[in-house]
């Protein structure tokens, strides 16, 4: 990860509060809808799953693939985003 997206920087810049799940890096409209359909409507719910999986990148990516059929890059972006947020605020 040489550079991060604007979305990533925006998310990592502040506490997530009540941000919707689509504010996560790597989660666009389509993935967001799938996640909401699976019950993950807020970013903090995804964060909870992220933490339950103990920040394990492999498992989290696997979970993303299962839940919303995210591809490798999307899930990697999302994981990176949450990981960076945790380093900053947790």
């Amino acid at each position, binding site marked *: 990860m040489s550079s991060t997206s604007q979305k990533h920087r925006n998310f990592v810049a502040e506490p997530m509060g009540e941000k919707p799940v689509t504010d996560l890096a790597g989660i666009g409209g389509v993935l967001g809808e799938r996640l909401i359909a699976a019950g993950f409507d807020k970013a903090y719910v995804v964060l909870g799953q992220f933490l*339950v999986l103990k920040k394990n990148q492999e498992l989290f990516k696997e*979970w993303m693939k*299962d839940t919303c059929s995210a591809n490798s890059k999307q899930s990697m972006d999302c994981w990176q985003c949450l990981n960076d947020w945790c380093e900053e605020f947790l």
Partner: protein
Amino acid sequence: MVVDVDKLSDAELRTKLLEFGFPVMPITGTTRKVMAKKLKMLLENKGKIGDGAGRRSMGKYSSEEDSDVEIVSVKKKENRRATMAAPVMQPPPPASSPGRSRKSTRLNDVSEIQVRNSSPKKELKTSSYTSTTTTTRTKTFRPTQDEFDTGSDSESDLVTNNYRSSPTKSENVLGGSEDYFTRDASPKNLSSRSMDISYGGGSSQPASSSRYNSPSLASDYANDRLNQIRNRLSLGVPSSYEKPTSSYASTLDKEETPFLSNFTRRLSALSSTQKADDYKSDIIKEHDTNGSTSLYARSQLGSYRSAASRPAASPYGFRVGQPQSSSTSHWSQGNAFIKNNVVSFAVLAGAALFFIFLAIAYLGMRSDTSVIPSDAVVPYCIPHDPSSKKGVNCLLKEDAPDAFNLLAIVRRELHRRAIDANCNGQSYRRMHMTEEDIVKFCLANFHTKVDKVKHDLTNLEILIFNNANWGLTVLNLDEDRDTVTENDIARDMEQVIFNKDLKNIVALIQLKPDLPWTCTFYNGIKVTVTASLAVIGLTAVLYCTKWLYNRYSQNQSRQHKELTQMVERILEILQQASGLEDGRGDEENGFVVINHVRDMILPVADRKRKETLWKKAMRFINENESRVRTEIQEVKGESFEVWRWIGSSNLSTSGSPPGSPITSGPASWQGQAFETDAGAVNSLPCSPTTCLKVRGITEEGGGASKARLDEAREAVLSKCAHRCRILHCQADQSTGCVYLKCATTGDAAVAYRNLHGWWYAGHLVTVKYLRLERYMQRFPNSPSGGPPFLKSQTPAAD
């Protein structure tokens, strides 16, 4: 071994993952799927490669083995007992059943050998062993573990105390193993258990004692095999098959103890029998412990089978007692090596056979050219058939072998000649053989007659016409020569016979010989080298041509330049001469002798060398210079050809037109570009203001130096200051313009006319009227009235 991961409970899933050394995380509804997938992946991977987790859990066992090996080599009974108990005391649960513990000690005996023999095999064995332990663990027999432990302890005590094998003790021993069986306590086994007891108490003892000294190793072995196969085939084993199992278990216990106590005394006598029993009981126990450990059993069987088939002189016991003896180890090492690499050897042998076959086939193909081909078309004469004419289109059956013999000889010779001609560079040798040649050749080398050879040759020619695939061709030559062409090829036998009648020569040739590869190679190289040489030569020629052309064109342009320079110098000299004469006002003598011009231009040394150039220049001037006239004048009493300059002197041939900038020499007013007098198109009828802005004196854009500005100001003043009254004149650095303020509008009009539309130093000067307030804005200190008026130091003449 196959576990349905999806049906495991959350807790089981966790436990399993933990076994693989995977970080434990909460199994929730959302994570369950991921974790299950992970576990599946781990399970799959484990079978293929030694999994990290498996290795870790195996560490304990391997260390245990090591200690066992050491202890066994010491041959101390107490130590032996300790080791027997040791696996039971070990924390890892897999070794928690008595059967297991015994097995592990036996296993160690075996593995001691195998450690030395082949470590890969040991790894395989241990890994499969681990897999059985994992499945055993999941069956949660932990509650029964204590029972097994005690069973094991008591059993080992019994064994050591009563190794003389009284019937009652043996029953106890059996009881120990019966305890062990309760673990699997399925309803089916319950009935078999009771049978086991009765069997063990009654009949197993004599049986085992008889087997004790039984030399019939083979029958035992066969029996074991049978049991093994049965056990392997059926997981739900019928109770009748379980019986021998338990008896073997007791046998093991009994025989193990003599082995321990009277090790050195009974070693040789016991070894073979004991070995077979051990092996058998090991397998069966393993099988009992877990229904799915056939892998272990099989691998064990494999190793035992090889051991059992050995002569009895190298028993296991001996090896256990004296690990230093290495002859058997060598033997089994070699055996293992061959066994391990059986597939590789088979592949290697297959490849070798294949290539040998290929080589033979290839050689056969090659040699085929020199023997009589079986697929030859032989037109035999049919008796009483009018269409078959002997010697023309058919031959007699009895003549055919001779013709083929001749063919073999002739073909070999032709092939040799063809190779000679094509490869060895002996092109003078001809490739074909005339009939005469063939006859001579045959007579020289074989004991035949001329008529016979000729007869066979005719038949051979018929055969050749019928067998085009031989590569031989019949030629009709009208004279004896070395080279042959396409036209010489005979079409059919009748033509040949006809030509023979005409005394022409018939010859045989191999047109497309099968050349050896070296020859083909050399020919190829020759062709390649020739072709590349030709290409290189062509490239060189092209390059040379280009280079020469470049040289030529360079030379031409240089000569042209020299010519132009010379003509210019001549014209210069002529102009100077005419100008000089003009100054003196003597029109008649304004010419120069041509030879003098040459002498002036060319130095003495160059005169000879540059004569052609000079002549060219002369011709150029005579033909192309209209301002020079060639005439004959008498100079000092001698007639010379002279050049006279008849053009105007102020127009220089190489000089710039009036409009071009003059960089050197004093800047001056050079004349008027257009009319600016009153009434002209370019002049205003009356001047609106008294102020003027003069452009074009200096270069546009400003930034001129102070000296240049002063010069411009002086130029403007010199042009008009003596004609009108000028109050103020200033050159501005930023714009490069000269600003002028006159006393009256009339003066401004005069200044305008004298400046506007004039050439100054190659620039056209333009003047605009400027409003007074603008002027005052720019120059607030300019005087508003005069005198004094500005004057120029050197007023211009015009």
